[in-house]
């Protein structure tokens, strides 16, 4: 099978199709979880800890129970279900009896209306035995009485090293040492957390706002002690997740638990505030970096030492990988990283678009920039000199990094726009500057399943377990199938998002859908085409090697004549539906590594009197291999960049110094960027062909953004900002200090 995929050498795709569900989404016809109404449905609302750290001693629900509409209350005192995906290093319960942050879920109230549930939940009173708590990295590391977890309050160190860093630092001509920090962030999907569950005997159905119906099903089954086939998860329409709707969520379990207790369907719906507090966001980092280079601009070694505030729970799957990525940007002689995850009594952290990616890129890409200016080098030249050509051992399956950097610089007009920073003589008005940053990200291969069929009318049907969290996965799957089978896109239908009807998919996380599930779709569609050619041979007596299927027609490849439509062919064959069910398990060959690459270019204007930064231009050049659908691919890149702009300029979870609670759990106070702050973002893709098909795309766009903007601010002002989000106040202070 792999041979077929390896043979593909498609030209750069110019396909640009709107999402197949665009109309229903825009017109309000798409049925999101919150739009479901099931007979006799009840509503559950969680109640949560008001102390940062403690043991629940008593729960009084007598007032809550008086609320008209009150049906049931469940809490940590009677339910000890575990939520395995909720914390990777320790055991976390759905309802915590040992609460570890203000907002930790203790129980839920079920009622006949949303309002009654909210009211009743607010009337539950909980007594605690309070324990010492910590709200930041320093106080966790410095407090020996603190026991957020019994076996220690940190994870790590994660060590990653190659070469002899000490030796390089000793022998290099220039060494720089800097501190960088990034803030706690939230994913802020448009659709807050929600789940609807009901039981039919011991069969459970969950309508979930999940990024993966199969991951969700498997998690729920495990946590509730059910066989996976007893659980059906439906997830048709989603309002985004960016990593915080991954696998089974505690609210899925809560809906199931409340439904089992009451015997009625139960919907659990989070408010925006709940979403900010109870669903994880991105961890913050405190990083000390060192870089060693020679005067000619050659980077010899990088050292990263970091502590990361991972909150009370970490949902991040890869043990300790809280800083990761930049070791694959450059070819250095040595790399040395030592990373700790530090627990604090603050809300949980976990996956958010390229989980450790942008934090790690920010520090390294700022530092490389600092080194470029220190050496008097053009920052693009510095990147060009050092970008990774080959991994430490073995080779990349494809590498379009050079094109990203050089063509990106050309398209942006870098040579004309970049100027060495001059001493600012003026004190008023706007100054502009440009910045560059690069990045890479992994692009795995893995298990894919798909069922593709063609019916007697010639309609192609693609059935996969994708959920289309916002990536356009349905459209991508349909395009792959239609292109490979030779059937028009308009005659292609998609079945998706239900464990009962669709085969397994990893779901939309880790930039995997197009690569993993798409590979299976491609193979199944190829088999369909091959069957159609055999049928053509049988029906028309022409060798299948002389036949092709194009745009829904059987074609004579010799003269290009249309022999019949696929619809007529299916009819003439007398066959019914042809179905191909395919599982693919592509794997890299020994020594191969598969990565995607990007170079970003930004221009900012800074008001010298106020320190305000306005992003005035942005260009991204990406190697993600073959692009299946330009339109949705471009949107993915722009979306990632917008999230990066937020991280650079506006977003920060404010954590209370007195109890670790979130002080800005609303869209009024937690500011995601709005349209006025976003310039037109130009997106380009390289012509790279990867032998394994399309590479990953969803995560990498956010990675270089913060550094590109920070580097542009430096270019404009001569001020280097090293803490995210960039503060106009800090910038102004530095500007004044410089005069």
């Amino acid at each position, binding site marked *: 099978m792999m041979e077929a995929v390896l043979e593909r050498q498609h030209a750069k795709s110019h396909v640009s199709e709107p999402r197949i569900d665009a109309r229903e989404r825009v017109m309000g016809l798409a049925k999101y979880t919150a739009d479901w109404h099931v007979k006799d449905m009840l509503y559950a609302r969680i109640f949560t800890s008001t102390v940062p750290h403690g043991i629940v001693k008593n729960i009084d629900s007598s007032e809550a129970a008086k609320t008209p509409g009150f049906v049931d209350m469940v809490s940590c005192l009677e339910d000890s279900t575990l939520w395995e995906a909720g914390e990777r290093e320790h055991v976390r319960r759905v309802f915590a009896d040992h609460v570890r942050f203000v907002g930790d879920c203790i129980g839920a109230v079920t009622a006949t209306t949303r*309002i009654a549930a909210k*009211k009743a939940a607010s009337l539950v009173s909980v007594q605690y035995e309070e324990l010492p708590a910590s709200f930041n990295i320093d106080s966790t590391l410095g407090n020996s009485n603190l026991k957020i977890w019994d076996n220690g309050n940190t994870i790590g160190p994660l060590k990653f090293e190659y070469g002899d860093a000490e030796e390089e630092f000793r022998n290099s001509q220039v060494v720089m040492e800097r501190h960088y920090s990034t803030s706690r962030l939230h994913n802020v999907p448009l659709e807050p957390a929600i789940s609807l569950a009901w039981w039919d005997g011991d069969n459970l159905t969950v309508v979930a706002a999940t990024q993966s119906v199969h991951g969700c099903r498997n998690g729920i089954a495990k946590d509730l002690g059910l066989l996976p086939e007893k659980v059906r998860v439906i997830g048709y329409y989603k309002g985004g997740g960016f990593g915080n709707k991954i696998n089974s969520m505690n609210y899925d379990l809560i809906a199931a638990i409340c439904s089992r207790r009451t015997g009625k369907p139960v919907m659990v719906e989070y408010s925006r505030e709940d979403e900010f507090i109870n669903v994880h966001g991105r961890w913050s980092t405190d990083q000390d970096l060192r870089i060693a280079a020679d005067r000619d601009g050659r980077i010899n070694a990088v050292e990263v030492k970091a502590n990361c505030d991972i909150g009370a729970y970490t949902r991040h799957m890869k043990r300790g990988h809280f800083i990761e990525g930049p070791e694959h940007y450059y070819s250095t002689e040595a790399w040395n990283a030592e990373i700790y995850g530090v627990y604090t009594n603050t809300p949980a952290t976990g996956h958010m678009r390229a989980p450790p990616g942008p934090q790690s890129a920010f520090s390294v890409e700022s530092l490389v920039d600092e080194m470029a200016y220190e050496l008097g080098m053009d920052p693009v030249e510095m990147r060009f000199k050092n970008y990774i050509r080959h991994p430490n051992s073995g080779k990349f399956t494809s590498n379009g990094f050079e094109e990203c950097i050089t063509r990106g610089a050309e398209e942006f007009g870098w040579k004309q726009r970049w100027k060495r920073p001059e001493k600012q003589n003026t004190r008023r008005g706007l100054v502009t500057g440009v910045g560059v940053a690069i990045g890479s990200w992994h692009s795995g291969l893995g298990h894919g399943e798909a069922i593709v069929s063609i019916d007697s009318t010639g309609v192609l049907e693609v059935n996969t377990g994708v959920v289309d969290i916002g990536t356009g996965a349905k459209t991508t799957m349909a395009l792959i199938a239609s292109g490979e089978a030779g059937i028009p896109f308009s005659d292609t239908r998609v079945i998706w998002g239900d464990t009962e009807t669709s085969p397994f998919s990893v779901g939309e996380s880790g930039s995997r859908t197009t690569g993993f599930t798409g590979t299976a779709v491609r193979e199944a569609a190829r088999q369909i085409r091959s069957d159609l050619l055999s049928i053509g041979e049988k029906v028309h007596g022409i060798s299948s090697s002389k036949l092709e299927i194009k745009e829904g027609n059987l074609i004579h490849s010799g003269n290009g004549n249309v022999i019949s439509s696929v619809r007529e062919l299916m009819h003439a064959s007398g066959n019914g539906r042809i179905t191909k069910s395919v599982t693919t398990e592509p794997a890299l060959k020994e020594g191969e590594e598969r990565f995607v690459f990007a170079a970003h270019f930004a221009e900012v204007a800074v008001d010298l009197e*106020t320190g305000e930064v306005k992003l005035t231009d942005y260009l991204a050049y990406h190697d993600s291999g073959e692009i299946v659908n330009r339109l949705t691919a471009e949107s993915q890149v722009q979306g990632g960049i917008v999230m990066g702009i937020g991280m650079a300029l506006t977003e920060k979870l404010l954590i209370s110094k007195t109890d670790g609670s979130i002080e*800005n759990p609303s869209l*009024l106070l937690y*500011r995601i960027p709005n349209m006025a702050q976003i310039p037109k973002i130009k997106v380009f893709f390289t012509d790279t062909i990867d032998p394994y098909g399309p590479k990953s795309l969803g995560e990498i766009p956010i990675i270089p953004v913060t550094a590109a903007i920070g580097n542009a601010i430096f270019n404009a002002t001569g001020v280097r900002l090293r803490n995210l989000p960039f503060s106009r*106040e800090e910038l*102004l202070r530095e500007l004044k200090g410089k005069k």
Partner: protein
Amino acid sequence: MIIEPFQYFSPQSLDEAFEILSEHHGEAKIIAGGQSLIPLMKMGVEVPCIVDIKKIPGLKAIELSKDGLGNVSSIKVGALVTYNDIEGSNPVKKNLPLLAKTASGIGHPLIRNRGTIGGSLSHCDPAADLCATALALNARICITGPGLKTRSISADEFFKGPLETDLQDDEILTAVEFPVSAMKMGYDVQKLTLGHGDFPVFIVSVSLHNDGKKFTDIAIALGGVGETAVRAGECESLLNGRESITDEDILEVSKMITEKYDPPSSAELSHDYTLDMLAVYTRKALINAVQMVTG
């Protein structure tokens, strides 16, 4: 989510509105654009009864009055005129450009589609954009009470404190009247916000005239620096009547402003910074306004 149930009335006339207001005395709140009232109710403020005045005729007009020579002497903006309507009105743009500019800078397009001048002034947030500009333009507030009794007072007398005005529970703000001058004018509005489209931390609204010889009617209105929007009278007198206003004069006034007024700080912006910015934004507004009349 609004948790507490409430009654909703939609009177067709002022008379009917006053009837409802008197029946639900002390419990009823008028709703116009709902851009402040609804968020408050979502935050848990209990309002047992809301009276929607949008069906009452006559509150959406923009009326011009003319003097004997046919020049526009004042413009009356109905209470229900939205920020968007203000921004798009030709007579307003021509005669009260400061008002148009202020309205166009409020919040986001969604807010400007719904928020009304009457609502903004009645709500009386100390940092609201229109409160400062109403003061800068010497607006008069037209009020109607039970029995259709009308009165009008200056904006200055109208604003009493944070979210507190001279309006009685049973009164409705029906219009805001702005005097119009034929003299050459300069104006600007500048504000510090935490993010684009956010409520101002503070706002500086400046209006001035020049009769060809000297500067007159200098108005510097500040929002967000006290209990209500205020006029910086002492600073105005420093510039009033001058034949020319130099950068140095403006610097002096900007400095004086920071000695007399105190903008708030927040988790994100320190007091040192907001105070610095008060001087910077005042200076920017004054420079722009002065340049308009001096070319």
